[in-house]
């Protein structure tokens, strides 16, 4: 039972990280109609900057703040220099150009920090465990990720549903031509939304640093999972991104933890040994295929 709760928490933790990535990406998809493969690169930039600034300043909080600002700057710069010209192009051009950007970002990072994974430390006050229930001790830092993630989700909900900026974002996701026709500076809105998404991706990377490997290419591993999240949730929908992220996070984590023992009860242990890990790593893609077959627009399609 304790193991199950622990794995559910792990799933939640993965889920909120995926959500931070997916929120920005789904808005960029929904509003600018841009397939941005380089979103994962911003996650990587966030992780590297946080590690670097924490070492340089000695303060974790300051390191996080500087890394967040740095990722925001890199994101806005990328939008202004390269991505801006891609909004009017077709998806094929966008995929290829942002694929090129991935190569550029990964190699730049490798030039600066090398190809090997770098060690990203935690301050002492975040290293302990917290006893949530009798016999259940859970790492404090992972709990913090869950809390931060859920807080960001709540703040995002407030911004998107209750503010003027959010109204513009929602309007842009459902009909951007109309928003431009109503006299809104759509270029500026694009840059703001992109910067917003970049900062969120950076935040995910910053928090990922101490628990996953910080190395060039780390963004692409999570990026493809984020695509699954967005497609499951429905492109352009923040609500869908949250639901999709939690579903994907839980399915992936629980699948990896329990599929093998579960299979062992229905087949022979050796068959479960062989099939379990393979099936567990394929599970979220199967989920995506099923969702698309039943609801091609995702669970929470934003466009009617």
């Amino acid at each position: 039972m304790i193991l199950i709760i622990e794995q559910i928490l792990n799933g939640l933790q993965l889920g909120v990280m995926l959500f931070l990535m997916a929120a920005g990406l789904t808005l960029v998809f929904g509003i600018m109609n841009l397939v941005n493969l380089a979103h994962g690169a911003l996650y990587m930039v966030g992780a590297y900057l946080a590690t670097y600034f924490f070492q340089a300043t000695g303060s974790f909080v300051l390191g996080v703040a500087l890394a967040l600002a740095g990722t925001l700057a890199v994101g806005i710069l990328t939008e202004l220099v390269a991505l801006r010209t891609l909004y009017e192009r077709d998806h094929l051009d966008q995929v290829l150009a942002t694929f090129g950007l991935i190569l550029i970002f990964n190699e730049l990072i490798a030039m600066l920090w090398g190809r090997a994974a770098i060690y990203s430390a935690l301050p002492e006050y975040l290293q302990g465990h917290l006893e949530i229930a009798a016999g259940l001790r859970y790492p404090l830092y992972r709990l913090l990720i869950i809390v931060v993630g859920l807080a960001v989700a709540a703040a995002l909900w407030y911004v998107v549903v209750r503010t003027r900026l959010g109204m513009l974002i929602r309007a842009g996701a459902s009909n951007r031509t109309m928003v431009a026709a109503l006299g809104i500076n759509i270029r500026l809105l694009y840059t703001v939304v992109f910067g917003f998404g970049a900062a969120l991706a950076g935040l995910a990377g910053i928090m990922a640093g101490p628990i996953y490997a910080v190395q060039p290419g780390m963004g692409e591993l999570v990026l493809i999972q984020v695509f699954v999240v967005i497609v499951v949730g429905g492109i352009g929908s923040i609500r869908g991104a949250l639901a999709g992220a939690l579903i994907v996070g839980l399915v992936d984590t629980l699948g990896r933890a329990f599929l093998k023992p579960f299979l062992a009860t229905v087949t022979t242990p050796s068959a479960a040994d062989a099939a379990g890990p393979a099936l567990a790593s394929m599970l979220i893609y199967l989920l995506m295929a099923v969702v698309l077959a039943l609801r091609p627009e995702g669970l929470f399609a934003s466009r009617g």
Partner: protein
Amino acid sequence: MKPSPRTLVLFAVLALLAAVPTLAAAFNQPFYLDLFRRIMIFAIAAASLNLILGYGGMVSFGHAAYLGIGAYAVGVLAHHGIHNGWLQWAVAIGGSALVALVIGAVSIRTSGIYFIMITLAFTQMLYYMGISIEEYGGDDGIRVAKLSQFEGLIDLANPTAFYYVVLALLAVVLLLVHRLVNSRFGMVIRAAKSNDARTRAIGFSPYPYRLAAFVIAGAICGLAGALLVNQTAYLTPEFMNWTRSGELMFMVILGGIGTTAGPLFGAAALLLLEDLLQGWSLLPKLVHNFWQFYLGIVLVLVVLFAKRGLAGLLRGSKDGADG
């Protein structure tokens, strides 16, 4: 019918390719035999992607899947002691076609971003499957000790013989794709690309045509996978890595999307560029170490400024989608 300048260029290039083994032997540079064989194998894969991407408008971001299925068909059979090349290649082609049928049947119901994502996701699924099957090497891969055997006909262990097999198959595939896109079937595919609604209005349902093209493309790419694993003599899930799908797309764009010879030019241009960046002694070591950085810059520049690729240079100012 008078052959167009581009057709003549294609024939000239194929003739040059036929001369490569002789030239490589004359200059004692067997490396080039290997390089050009690799280029032609990727040209076959790119030509199959061009069929659905260039002519069908289906932006498949998972074409490396079939490269992998073809490679695994040969590698797995060889691992279990079955070396008959006819059987291996038939399983490679048939298996890829079958997988393409399943993936296509689901994916083609969607379009736009969803199509890109779902083809990518299916390929990732196969990639992780390859990684997690320890029996066939997991993520390390395994050596394929004995190449496909064609008793009494041809010995692939002979580099020159293998080279001409690949060249012949490339010519057949380019001809096949050319005939296909200019047939009635190809007309429907291209019509559905330019306007789905009008295609329906004149009485064609695009879905079965698209699916058929998708399956044919998968089958051809499976053949390329079978050739590739014979080329490397090593089976690895990296054949299915998503960056490989990106490279195939780039080859199609670089050579000139929706043209007969484009995939060959694109494969040659990309692989030669990669080879130069990695090993050309005139470039500083800094370039060799971070060659993908420069490749990325070329990629972005080509997409932004040279949309019609290398074949576009030959086409001049005339614009026309037909190959």
